[in-house]
């Protein structure tokens, strides 16, 4: 892969909840334009990593740089898609309104979104094939539709970096396809995509680089180099099933 510069650089990041370190001394370099999966067993700190990188959970130590600038200055360059289940879906609002929230960052204080912002939101909705649902209350969405709405909200931010927390968790196949298509398009446009992912089988298909994480960064780099049985065993501790999954993935591709 040609060097397009470094989009995100995480150095010595350590995070602890309670007395267990959740993340231990993480170093990570993500090249601009990468499509990276963060993979690891449950409790490996995958979601925590992107939350800590976004400054959403306090870190014990470490530094994050966005395009070479300190995080505080570069935060606007990152769009974040939280886990679907972390939201209050009974909130009284509709699809278009949620997606329009993606424009709030560029709107600044006090200004209200207008027609231009709503148009941007509609475009993003079309891209995730949710254009027909713009007036639908979010309480009436299926899990997959919810996920696509959250992705659309991040698209509206038009940020060069996207971080997604488990976007494929519990969604239907069409949604998964739609999300993958969007991620591919983003990557083709030179955007950097970082995804917390739980399905090992699809890693080689969906992503071009991978971070294997289990509290520590086990290894990171292009999928072809890093996504090996040995590394996975290190990451998952040789659990039954994981290797079987891997075998399946290898025969599949």
């Amino acid at each position: 892969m040609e060097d397009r510069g470094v989009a995100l650089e995480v150095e010595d990041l350590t995070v602890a909840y309670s007395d267990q370190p959740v993340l231990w001394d993480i170093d990570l370099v993500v090249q601009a334009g990468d499509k990276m999966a963060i993979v690891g067993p449950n409790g490996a700190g995958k979601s925590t990593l992107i939350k800590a990188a976004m400054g959403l959970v306090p870190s014990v130590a470490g530094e994050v740089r966005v395009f070479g600038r300190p995080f505080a200055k570069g935060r606007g360059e990152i769009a974040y898609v939280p886990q679907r289940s972390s939201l209050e879906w009974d909130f009284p609002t509709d699809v278009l309104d949620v997606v329009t929230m993606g424009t709030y960052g560029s709107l600044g204080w006090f200004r209200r979104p207008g027609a231009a912002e709503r148009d941007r939101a509609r475009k993003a909705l079309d891209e995730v094939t949710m254009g027909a649902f713009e007036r639908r209350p979010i309480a009436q969405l299926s899990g997959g539709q919810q996920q696509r709405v959250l992705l659309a909200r991040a698209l509206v931010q038009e940020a060069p970096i996207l971080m997604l927390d488990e976007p494929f968790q519990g969604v239907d196949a069409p949604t998964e396809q739609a999300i993958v298509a969007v991620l591919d398009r983003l990557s083709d446009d030179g955007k950097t995509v970082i995804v917390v992912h739980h399905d090992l089988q699809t890693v080689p298909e969906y992503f071009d680089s991978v971070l294997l994480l289990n509290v520590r960064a086990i290894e990171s780099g292009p999928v072809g180099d890093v996504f090996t049985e040995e590394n996975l065993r290190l990451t998952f501790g040789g659990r039954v099933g994981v290797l079987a999954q891997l075998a399946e993935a290898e025969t599949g591709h």
Partner: protein
Amino acid sequence: MDFLGDYTLRIVALGSGVLGAAAGALGCFAYLRRQSLVGDALSHAALPGIALVFLLTGSKAPLPIMIGAALAGWIATLAVRLVVRRSRVPYDSALGMALAVFFGFGLVLLTLIQKRPDAAQAGLESFLFGQAASLLREDVVVMSALGAACLVVLALLWKEFKLLSFDTEFGESLGRPMRRLDGLFTLLLVVAVVIGLRTVGVVLMSAMVVAPAAAARQVTDRLAPMVIIAAAIGVFSGVTGAVLSSVIPHLPTGPTIVLVLSTVVVISLVFAPKRGLLWRWIRLGRLQPAAALDPVLMHLYALSLQHPEEPDHGHGLAVLRTMSPTGADLERVIGDLEARGLVSAVGEGLWAPTPIGRREAERNLDREGEVGS
């Protein structure tokens, strides 16, 4: 009867209406943020503030007492915030604890004051609390000014408060100072509640925060209409209660407003289109997919799990009835489930879930698991 011509009615109706509008609008955000009980908590937590101000100044002048009350309430909400953020104690427990501990400390201070031979202490703890019938012109002026200020802040910070209530984390990821916004919102709520305590008393104020929001939520799925409807319900209830208590002798104003509010809530819970209980009941009769069908399906599924080797083991309605003693019309629900292919009869009066029914039940379980986590 000349309603508008009467001074008292005009003041009471106007005051209750203004308070209803401001509390109704602010209350929507409190409701969505699960802070509905802040009013009740503040009314108790204010006591040590009142007692301390009296201990320091020896007077019951309203302004210092109110400031003391608001400060104590504000500190209590800060303590709740700290406890919730830095421990796993849930919000409602922290709130209840702040309420009881602050009030208890206030009692300790009151017993100290009682020992002072000072007639000025008479009725100290009731001094903060007003009644709707005794609203003064001055109150209406103050409430209108502060109510308007609250609404202006709400309008200006509309999208920030929306983020605060819906997705704080996303707000933070945009770089918005969500904690400070949280503090600002809570401050608005504290000020509104203390003004309300002073003018109309605890119970009406508590109800004004919760009830309009709860009623409005049933009839709309969007935030702006919800806030407007809630404010309108607040105004309507305030004015209606004032008029009723003016026409009917010995009908206390505050409680009447509360009951008008409660009636509106009941009506909206029952008759709200799509969400309401009546709607649900009609849907049950009409073979529409409905959440109310789920419990019976879930119970049947749960029962079938007890016979893993025998997927077609049937269960009678009597068993189901003991599992859901809510009095649902089981025959009809079962018929409906059968029509949807979710259950099938496996014997005389015995029912079991079909494979589709099982999948549906498992999906429901997943969904609940997600909500719970």
